[in-house]
């Protein structure tokens, strides 16, 4: 009787074990042959974007959503769900860092290089050399690749560029009697510092009430690259050979003094330290500001408001002014899922290997030469930027902590505009506060292999 019981129990146990093993094997077999399910999170801030290839594209979200729809329906190697998420420019950094380790973590980021290069130093951004074919590499300028590379590896892939220059309201210039400085050609002008002085002083005298000569702001970090560019006006390279900000030179201090002087003279809106770049934008669009910044994406809006503008480089002591080139492209993040990384890279490849989607960059300065060649008749406004590209400068210095640098830079400009500190002190303060962040960035930097 006892033996029978043992036999029965053993039989049941063995049967259950066999069932479990068979079930496990079947499950594994099914899983193996099953297509993986991948959800891809593509994030971008609100970047204005016009495309001559598709007039429905107004911003980066439109562009990415279009690509996402095509990719998810055509991709064979996995069941892909693509989430395109757009965040506000001032909030996207928090959204990205807070989402690491969650299901909302960014897999592909489409953003300006200078805003996203810092992520490379977190070790989360994967090199993309394996998906950059010879064709792709040859199709994009060396300059763009240089900006995309760190320690010999390509961590970003450029899609298009913006070139920010200054622009001027031709009507206000005319009203101020500055006709000679108005160009009839669609070019990017360069003025000498003396010419700048003449222009701004004339504007200050002759513009009506509540109309101001030139933009200036320091309420937040938005638009700080323009201020930095102005600090190069007197010959300062802004960065030293080690990538640290260097303004305590004669050139740097002269530039600071120059800005302080401009402020004193009323070339900037009163209490401009309380203004954002958007306030200046509003003034410009209202016809209350003569000189603002512009780029190819913003230009249509300017034209919509009935403004006739001319473009001019930021001032330089050499006479050949500066522009700030914003490369916008892609980064791929490693969130610990090999499948996701593969699909993310395939998404990028899909864009660069599909003419329809590469063509959408035509409207800004496309990174692809063949796209420019294809649409250059429609991209007449791009030509001047391409011709002006040699005046561009690397305003991040490729340092790994640009975000934090921006947070500490603009308060120094506030001090500059307050006028309570000397130029030397301001230069010193800029160096100290910003370089501390740069050093911290290098200390914590790790790159993904």
């Amino acid at each position, binding site marked *: 009787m006892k033996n029978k019981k043992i036999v029965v129990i053993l039989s049941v146990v063995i049967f259950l074990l066999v069932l479990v093993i068979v079930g496990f094997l079947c499950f594994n077999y099914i899983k193996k042959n099953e297509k993986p399910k991948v959800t891809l999170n593509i994030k971008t*801030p*609100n970047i*204005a974007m016009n495309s001559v290839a598709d007039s429905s594209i107004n911003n980066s*979200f439109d562009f990415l959503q279009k690509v996402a729809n095509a990719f998810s329906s055509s991709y064979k190697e996995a069941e892909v769900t693509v989430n395109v*998420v*757009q*965040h*506000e*420019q*001032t*909030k996207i950094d928090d*959204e990205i860092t807070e*989402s690491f380790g969650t299901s*909302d973590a960014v897999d592909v980021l489409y953003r300006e290089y200078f805003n996203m290069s810092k992520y490379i130093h977190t070790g989360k951004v994967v090199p993309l050399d394996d998906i950059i074919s010879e064709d792709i590499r040859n199709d994009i300028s060396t300059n763009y690749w240089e900006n995309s590379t760190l320690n010999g590896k390509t961590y970003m892939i450029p899609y298009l560029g913006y070139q920010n220059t200054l622009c001027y309201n031709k009507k206000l210039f005319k009203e101020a009697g500055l006709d000679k400085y108005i160009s009839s050609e669609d070019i990017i002008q360069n003025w000498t510092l003396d010419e700048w002085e003449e222009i701004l002083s004339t504007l200050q005298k002759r513009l009506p*009430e*509540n109309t*101001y000569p030139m933009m200036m702001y320091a309420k937040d970090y938005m638009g700080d690259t323009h201020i930095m560019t102005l600090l190069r006006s007197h010959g300062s390279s802004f960065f030293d050979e080690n990538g640290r900000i260097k303004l305590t030179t004669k050139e740097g201090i002269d530039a600071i003094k120059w800005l302080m002087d401009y402020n004193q003279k009323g070339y900037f*809106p*009163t*209490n401009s330290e*309380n*203004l*954002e770049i*958007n*306030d*200046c*934008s*509003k*003034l410009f*669009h*209202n016809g*209350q500001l003569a000189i603002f910044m512009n780029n190819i994406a*913003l230009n249509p*809006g300017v034209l919509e408001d009935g403004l006739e503008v001319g473009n001019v480089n930021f001032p330089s002591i050499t006479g050949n002014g500066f522009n700030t080139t914003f490369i916008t492209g892609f980064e791929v993040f490693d969130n610990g899922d090999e499948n996701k990384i593969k699909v993310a890279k395939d998404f990028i490849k899909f864009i660069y290997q599909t003419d329809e989607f590469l063509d959408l960059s035509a409207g800004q300065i496309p990174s692809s030469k063949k796209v420019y060649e294809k649409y250059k008749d429609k991209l007449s406004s791009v030509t001047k930027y391409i011709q002006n590209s040699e005046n561009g400068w690397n305003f991040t210095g490729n340092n790994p902590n640009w975000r934090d640098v921006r947070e500490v830079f603009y308060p120094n400009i506030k001090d500059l505009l307050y006028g309570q500190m000397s130029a030397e002190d301001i230069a010193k303060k800029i160096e100290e506060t910003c370089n501390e962040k740069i050093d911290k960035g290098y200390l914590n930097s790790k790159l993904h292999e």
Partner: protein
Amino acid sequence: MPNNTVKKKKDRKIYKTKAQQKRLQIIRNILLVFLIIILLIIAGIAFWLFYSYFTDRVIYSSIHNMEEISEHDKKSIYASLEYRWMAGESIGTEIRQSKYKDIKTMLTNLNIKGQSLEGIDIALVTEDGKVYNSNYSVSEDKQLLESISNLGDRFVLRKDNPDYKTDYRKELLLVGSKLQPFTIEGNKFTYIVSYYDIDLLQDELKIDSFDGQGYSSVIDSDGNFIVYINKNNNLFKRDNFYDRLNNAKLKDGFTIQKLKDKIASKESFNIEYSLNGKEYIMTLTPMQEIDWYFVMYVPKVVFEQRSSSLLRIFTILIAFILIVTVLVIYLLFRNRSQKKLMEIDIMHRDQLQGALDLAKQANNSKTNFLNNMSHDIRTPMNAIIGFTTLASKHIDDKEKVKDYLEKTMQSSNHLLSLINDVLDMSRIESGKMNIDEKENNIKDIIKQIENIVQADIDAKQLELEVDSTNIPHENIYCDKLRINQILLNLLSNSIKFTPNKGKILFKIVEKSVSKNGYGLYEFRIKDTGIGMSSDYLKELFEPFTRERNSTVSGIQGTGLGMSITKNLVDMMGGNISVKSKVNQGTEFIVNLKFKLQEIHKEENTINNLENINDKIEDKFVGKRILLVEDNAMNREIATEYLQDFGFLVENVKNGKEACDILQNSKPGYYDLVLMDIQMPIMNGYEATKIIRKFENKDIANIPILAMTANAFEEDKRSAIEAGMNGHLAKPIDIVEFKNILKKILNK
């Protein structure tokens, strides 16, 4: 035998209990399983009811929580707005009071003062819709004026950012107040408006309620979200509240229109809906003073999780209690059963032990009996053998031969009585002893008994006093044989155990007569004998017991006599009692009931030698008897008997020889067949059946008498059923034989 009967009854009782026990156990197990199933079903139903009720209560409580959180968040929003209204109004008042002479100065100051608000901008609005912003921009926005002029002294509204293309903010929150108007450069300022990021109120909301799964938002009357419903929501998912619910399944009869109507009527309410496979509960409460609604929704699964975690604990607890209860019941039940089984076991063991003890005792008694029997049988056998040997040696000495033969007869009688006693006990044990009541005279019975014992009385010079004077009704129905057996046994014991010259009183009294014609008779036999110990008195009526065995006492006995006597008395419905003291004598008192009637006396004893020479009736002389007997000695004895009576006797040794010889005989050659039953080759029954089937009917119908050592009723019945005409017990009682012959041969 009473003890044996009791033993058998006990055995049957033990057997019945075990079978019953097994059946009971099965029934109990089935009942237990049934009970458990019922309990589980009841528990399941109770749990389901409780779960539903519990979940409803949790949901109700959670909705209450939601309403409380909503109130809290609303208060936070009001507080935040209140601060901004006051800040804006303060700035407006300050500017008014500053009495600026020009717009530029005013704007410069507005720019500075606006920084304290931590908003985007602050603007003053004129009565004709001009907007003077702290960022110095001046624009005309009649639409803004129109929208704020109907909103009262304080207002807050959501606005699409007209500068969205250049400004990264898609929506703005306008917080404004009506001012005491003031004029600068001809511009009459009536409102002050602050612009804030639409996220301003986000932080005022407890969006981490319900473990981060509770979502709060604020909508305006058009369903536009004032506050994002989810902090992590991206720009392009800020859709309209009503649009969002278009794809939802609203419950409780709600429609989008009904929703709008309720919101328009500023009602607080809850709705349940499902969207994308998930169920939600939403509370909507109006915000007073401003045209907004506070919306909070929580996935229903959150409540279910809350209730389920509690319920899980509760279920585990209940399950644990149930399991423990079932286990306890089972264990108690099992313990009880085991206890009962143990008790029954113990009882069985005790019974078995008792039976074993009895068996041992009986075995011992039987062993003793057999020992005694062996002795007691051998003793008369020795006498028979011895005396017959002596008789053969002194064959010429008639006197000696007569003496020897008489003694042989005595020993034979004694031996016969021994055998009869054993047979009687056997019959009594097997329930085959019958009381054969016939007409008898009690005084004749007593007289006969007196005669029987007289010789023994004389031999021991005992004084026998027989008192039967007090018997008004002498004629009764009774089994004379058994009465004799009882009384003779008692008397013979008295004679045996009373020393020489002792006294025996035999008194019979008719004690009473019942209405239905029964008389109660008391028989007293009192002696002055050796008496019996009190210990032995307890076992007196047990079989195979004697206080002293025959070797020690020198008194022969079977040890069955008293037991037989007791059984016979019990069978007759009477009672027997005894009083005895060692060396003082013994008194037996037997009470028996008899039906009253006149009786004729009968005797059933073996005739003594003097009766053997009774005259043989002439008609038996020359009758030929075929004697079928396998035992040579019995065959010789029977042959001699029969020949002495004038029969012609022929012998065969078994039934087959009998059949053969009869078949080959002439009809009428044989007058009678005396057939033994137990024979080799063919027994008497078989032979009789064959004979009865003979073709020749004369031969077939020849009278056949069974001749057996057994005189049980069933033997008689078997003989008749086999076709025999009668039954004769061995040794042949010639009187009975003659009576039977008369009946048969006279037919």
